[in-house]
């Protein structure tokens, strides 16, 4: 039995070697997939002593074969076939190299996520398709379009870490669709972000993002009730939270903050850490959370989502009417604006207005669990 994890871990390493040798990304990715298929056929259930070397040899041969058969291209791409200079780059550099290609800004976030899961995460196209609830052929098409887009782009030696962080954040935030479909994007995003942090240990935002993920993921066991419905933060059974993940997240965050270059992921992680630190919802340190929202607003000026979340914190610190004044200044079409206004109106004692706004928010949301939750809030306030 070949260890699935072994192949998944080796996939990006082998791909990294090919790309570093000068293979273009799309062709290298195809070659690695071919080599993995060969491994499944030839290893007879047992990996060779040097599985990575075996895969690199086969993948490189596949790459050269594919190049030769594309005879029209051979002449102008001879240069790319030269054997590489002796490898000086480390494996960790390869991870960043691959991630920055997969998360290139020319790709839509959805395409970048799919390509990252396949090329760096080592997931099969079928697994990715399941996570996104689309047919496998559609996902295959999406990935090959992404590769075609990349074929026309030029790359820096190492790519833009910011773009990589953004894609990994979105992958994590895709939700626990995995609960229903068997593919877990959040866990995968954490695994990939760990690899990234290992390759850019001096980047506080990479560490901040990993901390943010762990601090949210820690609450996962409490996030749904027995019927699968979302339990809001204030009502979660905090004894179910994963202490080890919280501790790791807090440690990472402290390391990141000590580098003294605060960014949006560190600020968001700090807010998550303050929530995780409260033994009960009532003990939440809202004044400190508000300070971090102020910081976040300085880092991402004009972000309506930050402004909306900050209004909740203001509601807790300065009272619901102060929070409402901020909400009322925001674009009425902003998602979740009505839900936040409803929450603050209830705190202020305006039950009828809260019920009306909860109902409006339920009509407007496109998130299933939120729809149910908001309807229940409206129903609760309309009853008594």
């Amino acid at each position: 039995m070949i260890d699935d994890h072994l192949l998944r871990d080796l996939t990006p390493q082998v791909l990294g070697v090919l790309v570093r040798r000068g293979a273009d990304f799309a062709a290298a990715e195809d070659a690695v997939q071919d080599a993995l298929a060969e491994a499944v056929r030839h290893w007879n259930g047992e990996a060779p002593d040097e599985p990575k070397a075996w895969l690199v040899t086969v993948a490189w041969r596949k790459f050269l074969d594919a190049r030769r058969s594309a005879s029209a291209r051979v002449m102008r791409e001879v240069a790319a076939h030269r054997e590489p200079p002796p490898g000086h780059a480390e494996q960790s550099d390869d991870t960043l190299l691959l991630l920055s290609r997969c998360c290139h800004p020319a790709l839509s976030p959805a395409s970048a996520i799919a390509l990252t899961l396949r090329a760096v995460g080592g997931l099969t196209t079928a697994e990715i398709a399941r996570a996104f609830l689309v047919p496998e052929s559609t996902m295959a098409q999406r990935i090959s379009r992404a590769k075609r887009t990349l074929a026309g782009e030029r790359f820096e030696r190492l790519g833009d870490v910011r773009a990589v962080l953004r894609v990994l954040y979105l992958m994590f935030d895709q939700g626990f669709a995995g609960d229903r479909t068997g593919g877990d994007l959040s866990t995968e995003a954490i695994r990939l972000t760990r690899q990234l942090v290992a390759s850019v240990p001096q980047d506080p935002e990479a560490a901040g993002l990993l901390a943010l993920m762990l601090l949210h993921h820690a609450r996962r066991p409490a996030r749904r009730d027995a019927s699968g419905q979302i339990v809001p933060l204030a009502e979660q059974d905090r004894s179910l939270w994963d202490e080890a993940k919280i501790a790791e997240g807090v440690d990472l965050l402290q390391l990141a903050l000590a580098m003294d270059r605060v960014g949006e992921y560190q600020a968001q992680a700090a807010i998550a850490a303050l929530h995780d630190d409260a033994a009960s919802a009532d003990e939440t340190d809202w004044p400190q959370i508000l300070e971090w929202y102020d910081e976040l607003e300085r880092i991402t000026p004009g972000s309506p989502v930050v402004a909306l979340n900050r209004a909740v914190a203001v509601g807790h610190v300065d009272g619901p009417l102060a929070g409402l004044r901020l909400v009322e200044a925001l674009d009425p079409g902003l998602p979740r604006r009505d839900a936040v206004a409803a929450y603050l109106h209830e705190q202020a004692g305006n039950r009828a207005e809260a019920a009306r706004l909860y109902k409006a928010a339920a009509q407007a949301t496109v998130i299933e669990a939120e729809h149910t939750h908001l309807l229940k809030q409206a129903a609760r306030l309309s009853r008594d």
Partner: protein
Amino acid sequence: MAKYLLLKHYRGGPKQHANAEAPMEDWAPAEITAHIQFMGDMIEDLKERGEFVDAQALAPQGDFVRYDGDGRPPVTDGPFAETKDLIAGWMVIDVDSRERAYEAAAHLSSAPGKDSLPLHEWIEVRPFLNEAPTVE
């Protein structure tokens, strides 16, 4: 990415454009072929873009069925009365934006009909409810 249902109606919905009024049996056979071909091409295009999820056509006949209490047979009502809205079929797409969903719906609405003119028929566009994001 977000999923959208594009619904085609046999009847019902807002008043149709003049081009969409003639029933299909009044079209020339080649016009029906062209219409079907258009649908097939559109599905191929969606697949090529990595946006295709599902496409189905429904037969015009059917019944409404309702629970009538334990131990009693289901109540049925049918066939559909002329006044009832009738769904002809759907496509499900997974796209980057609502604008792109509208663009795809408009393209579906441009399918050729009688006299090879675009139908301009109304397409109902409905977003799917999604999973909750992870970050609270």
